[in-house]
């Protein structure tokens, strides 16, 4: 079906297109909630069963890096919101600047995460044959479960961040070409929704994983 300007051929008008795109992103985010939800459930069950081991394992995490990452992501959600505003205000250059800022902050998050993962590797906290956790054997086994969940949950989150970076790059390219400063900024808005969602997942992950029993 042909496309006229920014209106795709199978839609009646831009309003229907916008409503459809927005609903589509919201429904997709619901599926993401269910996706992460499975892991959160597993985490909840095991934390309830092995609270002490989880607390001990959690104290091995670098809270400073985690908190820094939290700040970085919240700031990136701000720059993303500003990007949406800029596209609604039809300010192309500002839009691109904010998209770039968001991407840089996202990259910063991933870099810090990379350092954290490297640290875990060095401290033998990656589950598998090289896992070694000081303490009684049972506690070490339960800590291994903690770290398995840690890597799955933050890893899945990081994967979503990487996909988000790719999405931002594509948006940036089209923004530079001027595609989003007319009547049509649905992709920026929906991209913003996705980015905010990834941020919110981290807001849950940080206290659950890093802040179990800090002052033990």
């Amino acid at each position: 079906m042909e496309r006229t300007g920014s209106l795709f051929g199978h839609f009646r008008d831009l309003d229907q297109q916008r409503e459809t795109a927005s609903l589509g992103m919201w429904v997709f985010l619901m599926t993401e909630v269910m996706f992460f939800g499975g892991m959160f459930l597993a985490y909840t069950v095991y934390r309830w069963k092995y609270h002490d081991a989880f607390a001990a394992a959690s104290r091995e995490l670098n809270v400073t890096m985690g908190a820094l990452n939290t700040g970085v992501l919240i700031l990136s959600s701000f720059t993303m919101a500003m990007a949406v505003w800029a596209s609604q205000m039809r300010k192309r250059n500002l839009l691109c600047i904010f998209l770039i800022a968001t991407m840089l902050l996202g990259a910063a998050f991933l870099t810090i995460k990379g350092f954290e993962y490297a640290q875990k590797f060095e401290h033998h906290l990656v589950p598998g044959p090289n896992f070694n956790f000081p303490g009684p054997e049972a506690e070490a086994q339960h800590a291994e479960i903690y770290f398995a969940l840690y890597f799955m949950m933050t890893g899945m989150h990081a994967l979503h961040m990487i996909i988000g970076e790719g999405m931002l790059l594509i948006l940036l390219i089209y923004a530079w070409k001027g595609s989003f400063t007319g009547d049509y900024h649905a992709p920026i808005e929906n991209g913003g929704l996705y980015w905010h969602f990834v941020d919110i997942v981290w807001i849950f992950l940080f206290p659950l994983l890093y802040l179990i029993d800090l002052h033990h």
Partner: protein
Amino acid sequence: MALIVVAVFFSVLIGVGIFYLSFRYRRRPGHEVGQLVEGSQLLEITWMVIPFIIAMVLFAWGAKLYVTIRQSPSDALDVYVVGKQWMWKIQHTDGRREFNELHVPVNRDIKLTMISEDVIHDFFVPAFRVKMDVLPGRYTTLWFRPTKTGRYHLFCSQYCGTNHSEMGGWVDVMEPSQYQAWLSGGSNSESPEQAGQRLFTSLACVSCHGDLSGSGPGPRAPSLRGLYGSMVKLSDGRTVLADDAYLRESVLDPGAKIVAGYDNIMPTFQGVVSEDQLLQLFAYIKSLGNQPAQNASAAPGASATTAAPAAQ
């Protein structure tokens, strides 16, 4: 039976209804199109409410039966079962061990305490209408009261790998006299309590818990005499029942529950004891009764025993 009646009734009702209606109102000249029929909210509600009532009756019946199936009577004869790929190891409390075959006396309540060494299995005796999954890492129980002597199929009914279909056996229900004969005709192998007592020493449990037949507990570890079945006060304020699961956790993950007044210094025996050996240890601990000994030098067996009845 009620289930079959309901199922047949509705199947026939709908089946006959469809046949009758599609024949009575078949398409023929003069009847090329259907008539206009008004809906009826009353009818919709009626055929929601009636099935609901039937469903609730079936639920209540099934639930009541299930509760009976799940709750074993307190004076049942204990048997221990360890499932592994692809066989059943059965341990009677008097010492006889069996593989893939379970001998029991008729008209007695029999309670199986089961665990798996590897994957999930399931202990299924169709003739007795009982079945329960056998899990790694956790005990499950199953009970039955055989009312007719005979030989009945035992099947594994949770897929467990290559020889899942071969992991069957028999349950032999015998007259009490024959059962006694079978028991005493057993091998000269030691009873689980004796094996457990041996392990208690060889694994150095005595060094902290003391020699249970003689002197009292050591200063570093709580007394195990009379422990089984009692309520234990923990260091975090909780009070828990010392059942099979508690005993197992205490050996494999001692730090999970610390007894009040003691430190968290017990080492774990994970990887050191097998499921069979755990059951032997617990048989020994249970044989010391569930009342704490008043006299520290009480002779073994003097305390009241409500553990599994002895062979005679």
